[in-house]
């Protein structure tokens, strides 16, 4: 099995406060891997480190043979590693179409921009209807779709999503998870952070548990769903009651 994304002994600190301690994990091509953990565990920090927004204190991050941790964020995007950041972070004053087009700024993505835009509009017809609307005048769910659409415009090989369900109603969350599944079926590898551990584990093939900046466990998602400790810590109520 060839490694796709390989995170090795990564430590990240904000000034004197260390947020990640020797974190190692890997994501294989074609997988959906979830990263779950309590508030403040360092999930966002890890995603941002992969995307090039947080510098590493030590360790390395590779995509195939390519070292990512020596690249700047826009160069990492050029490699096809695209992050949908926590809280969406759209260009609120710009139109939906501008947001989408800017998502394809890297050279690689720009060449196929028109075709990608068509695919994104097929995936989210709502964005096509509202292409001239200002991004910050849309609802939370619509904004999350736009955030994912903007990331897809970058033609991701690895799509990273940091809490895509944050603050959204159950129906919207369901449709977003379905979209992620569809993207994955079409060959996009997905690395997903979620508070909503139950839904994340339902969707993912494998998962890692991050606690206080360290990897505290890993396994197949289906196994973790049945694991007593995980049930208690992250699923709260019994899974049967959630359905």
């Amino acid at each position, binding site marked *: 099995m060839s490694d796709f994304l390989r995170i090795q002994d990564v430590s990240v600190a904000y000034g004197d406060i260390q947020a990640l301690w020797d974190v190692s994990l890997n994501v294989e091509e074609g997988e959906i891997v979830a990263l779950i953990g309590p508030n403040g565990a360092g999930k966002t920090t890890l995603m941002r480190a992969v995307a090039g927004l947080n510098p590493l204190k030590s360790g390395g991050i590779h995509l195939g043979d390519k070292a990512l941790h020596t690249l700047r*964020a*826009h160069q990492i995007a050029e490699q096809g590693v695209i992050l949908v*950041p926590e809280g969406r972070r*759209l260009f609120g004053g710009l139109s939906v179409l501008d947001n989408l087009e800017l998502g394809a700024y890297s050279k690689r993505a720009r060449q196929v921009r028109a075709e990608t835009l068509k695919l994104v509009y097929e995936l989210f017809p709502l964005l096509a209807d509202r292409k001239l609307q200002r991004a910050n005048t849309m609802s939370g769910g619509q904004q999350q779709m736009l955030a994912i659409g903007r990331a897809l415009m970058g033609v991701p090989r690895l799509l990273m999503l940091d809490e895509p369900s944050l603050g959204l109603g159950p129906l919207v969350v369901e449709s977003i998870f379905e979209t992620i599944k569809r993207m994955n079926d079409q060959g996009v590898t997905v690395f997903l952070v979620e508070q909503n551990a139950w839904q994340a584990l339902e969707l993912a093939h494998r998962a890692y548990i991050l606690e206080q900046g360290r990897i505290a466990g890993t396994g197949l998602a289906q196994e973790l769903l049945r694991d007593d400790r995980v049930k208690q810590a992250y699923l709260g109520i019994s899974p049967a009651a959630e359905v």
Partner: protein
Amino acid sequence: MSAFMQTLVWGIFAGAIYGIAAMGLALVFGVLKILNIAHGELVMLGGYVGFWAFTALGWDPFLALILVIPATFVLGIVLDRVIYRYVVRLWGEEKIKNSLLVSFGLGLVLSNLAQWVFTGDERSVQPSYAGQGLDVYGVLMPYTRLATLGIVLVVTVALHLFLRKTYPGKAILATAEDYESAELAGINIDRVYMLTFALSAALAGIAGQFVTFTYALAPSIGMFWTLKAMIVIVLAGTGSILGALPAGLVLGVVEALSGAYLAQTYKELVGLVIFLLVVIIRPQGLFVRK
């Protein structure tokens, strides 16, 4: 009535130069998040390029813009590479302090350099048609001032179209809104900052060229123009780039009216009073909807 109209017209002409000078400052403020105290010195240097083109090459002051614009644009690139790109990367308090100190220091260096190269003498440029103009019902409109206003309008529209309609322009707006998201989208923000600073310097240069035949040019005028531009961007609302033009016109007109109807000595004070009033009563600026 015609005296009033004349004052109003002078105010509009002066305001157009304020507007274009402030637009450059607003651009750097909105995108790089730096208050460039040396902006007025870029106005001054642009003026000297135009003065040189007039005296050494015998070029018409409006034709000289084709030299002033690229020269100040390149100067902007150099200053960004050598100085500003290191300041942009700083964070929070450190960024605020360092950007103010560094740009203040750069302003001093540039004005002293200019003093050394060009001497402290006041210069100005007088094209042959300087005294001519239109007489509209007794209101005098010199051709130089009309052309200045026209160019300011054209540049403002061009900047608007560049920012709103072109890919690099949208990248500038995106970076201004959220530079991390811009990077995630694949935008090289280092380049965006460089281009933005160069554009800002070119806008300052254009203003400087207008100064050569409207006001006096001297190495020490930088701080005056930085101050005017700062007042204008507060009026416009920090974050509004093109709002600098209407805000510049407002400042020009208010100054002209207070100079004519209060006293010439109040003219400078009035701008500062409006500045304070806007900061206190309408801190988002006159031309920003909240």
